[in-house]
């Protein structure tokens, strides 16, 4: 019984039937392989093809594993970042650990929403023994003061409006840099191997930079006793 089919269907059917006829006339695959004895030259060429294919396969597998691992890490970090506590902890790990492992020199950018236009003066309520004021000057919209002791060690203090966007390049190879919070104000603590210590801290739109060859505890005491005159 005949029926009408599309031209494409007729072609497919014809090819299928032809191929079935052809393949049914072919001896068993195992018999054909057993009967085939390639020359040494062909064996060598085949080995080369297979070796190349295996190498390509290895590279593909390696790339696949790397891509999967990277995707897994990104997913895990993304999920963890959604939790505020974990996100804060991760930020801390990155800023305090990862940065210090890989960077010998780091940049820190300050940010502030509101700030005074001008600092006219400030008083230093506490200063380490023997240090005396040797220099005082205007520093942009802020004030700069320099203290020195008999050993010619220096302590400098800069107090200025924190307009945001200041970039501090810190030597992270010979010193240890950490984020620090003093009475709710965020800042950076840097302690060098040679005894030089630095505190950069921003509070209520004012940026304090206290640095010198004194213990970091002393730096904090100096900072805490600074009084501003706007």
């Amino acid at each position, binding site marked *: 019984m005949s029926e009408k089919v599309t*031209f494409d269907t007729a*072609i497919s059917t*014809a090819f299928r039937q*032809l191929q079935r006829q052809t393949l049914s006339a*072919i001896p068993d*695959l195992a018999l054909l392989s*057993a009967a*085939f004895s390639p020359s040494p030259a062909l064996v060598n060429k085949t080995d080369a093809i297979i070796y190349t*294919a295996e190498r390509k396969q290895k590279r593909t597998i390696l790339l696949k594993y790397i891509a999967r691992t990277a995707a897994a890490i990104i997913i895990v970090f993304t999920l963890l970042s959604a939790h505020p506590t974990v996100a804060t902890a991760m930020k801390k790990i990155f800023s305090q650990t990862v940065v210090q492992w890989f960077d010998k020199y780091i940049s820190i950018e300050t940010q502030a929403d509101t700030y005074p236009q001008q600092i006219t003066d400030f008083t230093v309520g506490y200063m380490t023994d023997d240090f005396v004021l040797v220099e005082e000057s205007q520093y942009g919209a802020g004030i700069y003061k320099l203290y020195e002791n008999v050993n010619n060690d220096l302590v400098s203090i800069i107090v200025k409006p924190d307009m945001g966007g200041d970039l501090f390049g810190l030597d992270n190879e010979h010193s240890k840099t950490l984020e620090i919070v003093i009475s709710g104000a965020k800042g950076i603590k840097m302690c060098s191997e040679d005894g030089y210590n630095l505190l950069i801290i921003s509070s209520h739109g004012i940026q304090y930079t206290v640095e010198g060859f004194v213990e970091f505890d002393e730096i904090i005491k100096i900072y805490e006793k600074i009084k501003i005159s706007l």
Partner: protein
Amino acid sequence: MLLFYLSAFDDDKEKSRFRKFYNKYSGLVYYVATQLTDVHSEAEDIVHETFLRLISNFDLIRTENEKETTSLVYTVTRYCGIDWLRKNKRELLIDDLPSEEFADETAPDIMVDTVYINDIMAIIADMDPMYAIPLQLKTEGYTISEIASFLGITAENVKVRIHRARKILKDRLEAKL
């Protein structure tokens, strides 16, 4: 972690996929090659060319289906063999023919009675394999780019050959009817 990766590469099953494939189908490839040429060295060259194509497109071969793989290996071997012999005996290559007549690859919108299937089979059997094989692979579900990859020609060339094969079939069938 690295050890885990390395152990994955050293998996014997993974490594021997190509070797198993070769061991299973090399006899068939040689058998098809000997149908095309009586010269043993030429048949071996065809075997080499064919495996080069098959193994470099290994991901496209559905090796889990033996029937389908056998059919593909047979078809690709036939094509590679004819192609190799033509190139080496400096006969006219189909690639040299102009392709400007190519319009599209859509099938002519005609209906065919199933009683004419045998006529179509006869036309296909008589057709130049360089045209028939791309069309055959298309009817077996391979994409244009897959066919191009297996046969070592451009996708555009595959389209041209499929179009011509259809046209030959249509013209010869109409002449018969």
